[in-house]
């Protein structure tokens, strides 16, 4: 039987210390306070002094409260019963469902052997033309959505959650506003996608330590499902909140900050989460989309900056659209050659014309005279933004490509598009 310790030596921030023997680093404990029970994990051992990080925070913990060590690290239950359920960052039910205790697995396990990785080869269809056509999402990819606060990034995630052609979705929320949490829940419920979704949600009102657990717990569950052959899409929102939680805890623990207060291991911490994205040969896969809000639209802020070095491109959300120039899916070349022969050419051609449209817009705003060509581009730009870039557009890739040809034929003559003749002959819509 595990011993119960009833003398807490010190309490500072979220960290308490007790004197105990035989404790392992990373072990989980249960702290019983007058407000109820909370989990805590061992973050430092120094002789018989054990420092624990209390998940529900240090507030209200008394020196007389009981600490019981559980003899194992943080775990989460894993089974199909998780589907459709909503949990907190520490794995407790947030809906009114029963607590799950069967088949417990450890979180934050070892990383995948690079020699066992394979070159990504399958696209994930989302029904969003700005993703499917222009910056294709690939199975096992890790991509952040760079966004300014106020942009509809959660709407975008919810849309992807409903439309993406994957087996299941795991949604990890960190520092989520309660309204946003309800928005996700209601949207997925109405869209009928709740039954293939698992939520691990930490809201802004919850204790900060639980926010740190969300990515690990989400990815540990994702990994098990992937090993059982499931194609899992993990949506994380918002990784900047996660990083800020890390900053807050590091500072209260008196760690030396490196850049704008963030701990020196920010890169490694983010990487160890994002690198969980993988395609298991002969089994399933994990794909990660994480929102990274950029304070002040500053891409050099430590969080988006470190993220950019880790991920395979980014979606850049601006003015309610996925902006085609800042966005990049580094893996799209692996898959968009095999979708349809016109895919790559149309993707390049339409973006080039859209870039020309923006130039014409600039000229127009400076009061230059508009040539015939400018007028055509202006018409094209408006249609392109409405029919392709709008986030509510939901059409399969082939439909989007057809639509692309339609838009081109509406605005230009075939030669003006700069596309290859053989493609024009084959795909140019006949009037």
């Amino acid at each position, binding site marked *: 039987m595990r011993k119960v310790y009833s003398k807490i030596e010190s309490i500072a921030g979220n960290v308490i210390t007790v004197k105990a*023997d*035989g*404790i*392992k*680093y*990373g*072990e989980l404990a249960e702290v019983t306070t007058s407000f109820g029970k909370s989990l805590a994990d061992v973050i*430092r*051992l*120094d*002789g*018989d002094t054990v420092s624990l990080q209390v998940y529900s925070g240090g507030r209200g913990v008394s020196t007389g409260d009981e600490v019981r060590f559980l003899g194992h*690290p943080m775990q989460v239950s894993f089974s199909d019963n998780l589907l459709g359920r909503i949990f907190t960052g520490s794995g407790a039910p947030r809906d009114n469902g029963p607590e799950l205790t069967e088949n417990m697995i450890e979180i*934050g*396990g*070892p*990383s*995948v*052997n*690079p*020699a*066992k*990785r*394979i*070159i*990504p080869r399958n696209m994930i269809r989302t029904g969003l033309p700005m993703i499917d056509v222009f910056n294709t999402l690939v199975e*096992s990819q890790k991509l952040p959505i760079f966004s300014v606060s106020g942009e509809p990034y959660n709407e975008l995630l919810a849309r992807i959650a409903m439309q993406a052609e994957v087996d299941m979705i795991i949604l990890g929320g960190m520092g989520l506003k309660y309204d946003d949490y309800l928005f996700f829940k209601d949207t997925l419920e109405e869209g009928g996608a709740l039954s293939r979704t698992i939520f691990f949600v930490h809201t802004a009102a919850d204790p900060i330590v639980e926010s740190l657990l969300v990515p690990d717990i989400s990815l540990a569950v994702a990994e098990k499902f992937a*090993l059982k052959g499931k194609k899992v899409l993990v949506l994380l929102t918002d990784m900047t909140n996660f990083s800020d939680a890390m900053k807050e805890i590091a500072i209260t623990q008196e*760690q*030396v*900050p*490196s*850049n704008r207060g963030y*701990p*020196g*291991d920010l*890169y*490694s911490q983010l*990487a*160890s989460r994002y*690198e*969980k994205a993988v395609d*298991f040969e002969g089994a399933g896969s994990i794909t990660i989309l994480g929102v990274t809000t950029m304070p002040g639209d500053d891409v*050099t*802020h*430590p969080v988006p*900056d*470190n993220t*950019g*070095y*880790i991920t*395979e*491109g980014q979606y850049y959300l601006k003015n309610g659209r996925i902006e085609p*120039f800042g966005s*990049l899916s580094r*893996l799209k070349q692996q898959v968009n050659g095999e979708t349809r022969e016109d895919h790559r050419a149309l993707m390049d051609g339409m973006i080039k014309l859209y870039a020309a449209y923006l130039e014409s817009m600039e000229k127009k705003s400076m009061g230059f005279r508009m040539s015939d060509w400018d007028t055509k581009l202006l018409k094209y730009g408006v249609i392109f933004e409405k029919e392709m870039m709008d986030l509510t557009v939901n059409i399969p890739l082939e439909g989007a490509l057809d639509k692309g040809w339609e838009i081109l034929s509406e605005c230009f003559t075939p030669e003006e598009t700069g596309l290859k003749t053989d493609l024009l002959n084959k795909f140019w819509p006949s009037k």
Partner: protein
Amino acid sequence: MAVSKGKVIGVNGNMVTVAVEDVVSMNEVAYIEVGSQRLKAEVIRIKSDNAELQVFEMTEGIGIGDSVDFTEEMLSVELGPGLLGQVFDGLQNPLPKLAEECGFFLERGVYLGALPTDKKWSFTPAVKVGDSVEKADTIGTVPEGIFEHRIMVPFNCYDRYTVKEVVSAGDYTIKDIVAKLEDSKGNIVDVTMSFTWPVKRPISEYVERLRPVKPMVTKLRLVDTFFPVALGGTYCIPGPFGAGKTVLQQVTSRNADVDIVIVAACGERAGEVVETLKEFPELIDPKTGKSLMERTMIICNTSSMPVAAREASVYTAVTLAEYYRQMGLNVLLLADSTSRWAQAMREMSGRLEEIPGEEAFPAYLESTIASFYERAGRVRLKDGTEGSVTIGGTVSPAGGNFEEPVTQATLKVVGAFHGLSRERSDARKYPAIHPLDSWSKYTGILDETRTEIARSIILRGNEVEQMMKVVGEEGTSTNDYITYLKGDFVDSVYLQQNSFDPVDNSVSPERQDHTFNIMFDIITAQLELDTKENARTWFYQLRQKYIDYNGSDWQSESFKKLETEILAMIAEKKTGVDESLLAMQVEE
């Protein structure tokens, strides 16, 4: 002397404090016993009876009182035939073998031998009984792929020896004794084909270090012509994310004119290593006709693997490089990225509660970076042959701003700087090495005065371009406009290189010389172009032809045809040489 033992008395992240019972030495390797697992660790600080260890694995589950075995050995790598073509982690564990043993995940506490022990090598002795030898002398050779691998007297045998026995030519494994040597005191030393060497001690078994004067051809025009790298030299590639650092490294690892390439993927994306891993065995090295993998080693400690091993990985890589240099070979070490290595140092320094320097990097950052790059060099070995280690490191500066400690510390010690620019990569101008900010102290394959003139024209063209943004095209003189077009021309037909084009992706020095001369003729010419419109049309036509020309096989029919057309176009408009351009120099 008995090896020490100890007990864990504290754990903080990946740092473990151990009470030691006996003597302990700095940087000694120890194993911590956790249940059935033994976790590798290195002593990084000693305080009276306590040693502080950085653990190369995750530390979860370590408890107070766990026993620790010290080994008396510093962190070492195994040297011998069979290293080439392998994929190791930062501690020289062969990853494919690990995958066979453990499956998808990197289980902690599993350490495998780096070299295959069952493989037989065909040994040819180079000494006979009675010969006198010392460390690093060749006892015999075995063929390893396309190279002759020298079996040497281990570098840690510090005496003079007499050969007592040496095996006859035949097949042996790395564990078989191939020679017995007698030292000056009459002790017998058994020599096998492999031995270990501590990674943090440079191998310096050479007569003298030579100046790096021979260019190392990368087949990138921008590098070879303008910012050359020398065999035995050092260079760095700083750049923001997405600017193409890794692609540049991959292209270099394929095309560089060296014998052996070591890729140290240090703290970067696993996916990129996979590309190298899967593609290299398929790619044929034009020089040898064999797969590229046969001349390549990959040391791979990706971003999600334990941080302490990341710190070790660059040393592992450079030690392997130095070992092959001892065989008279030219080795290129590509480290991607040295910033992640510096960050690993920063994390450890934080745990040790050292007083932080700039951006919390440790105060010894600069000297550590300097001593790493100093392990590069061209050397003359005892037998008169030459070998070299060239180091190219990428730097990932925070926010793409070069004014940060790692970039600055690196710039102090390297011989060439290939600064990547976000501006150029956004404009899809690859390689995105900035032609004005970058520099090199090495001699290239082309005449430096001419390349400097070309660079000054780019600079001048750039100035005109900036000016035009203010005064518009109307306010620019035709002459200035032509200068702008010339600068743009150099950029698009010479600096930029299409790495996806089968011909343009690697350009031989011979071809660089040839096409540079034609381009030089164009940009220094007095041209008869009266209006801006005419000038633009002419340059755009010429550019189109030149790009096609770059994409046609060297000395092929289409190559010759396009060259004739280009020369005709020049002859039509050229009226003389613009002396003012020849006199220009880049203002540094």
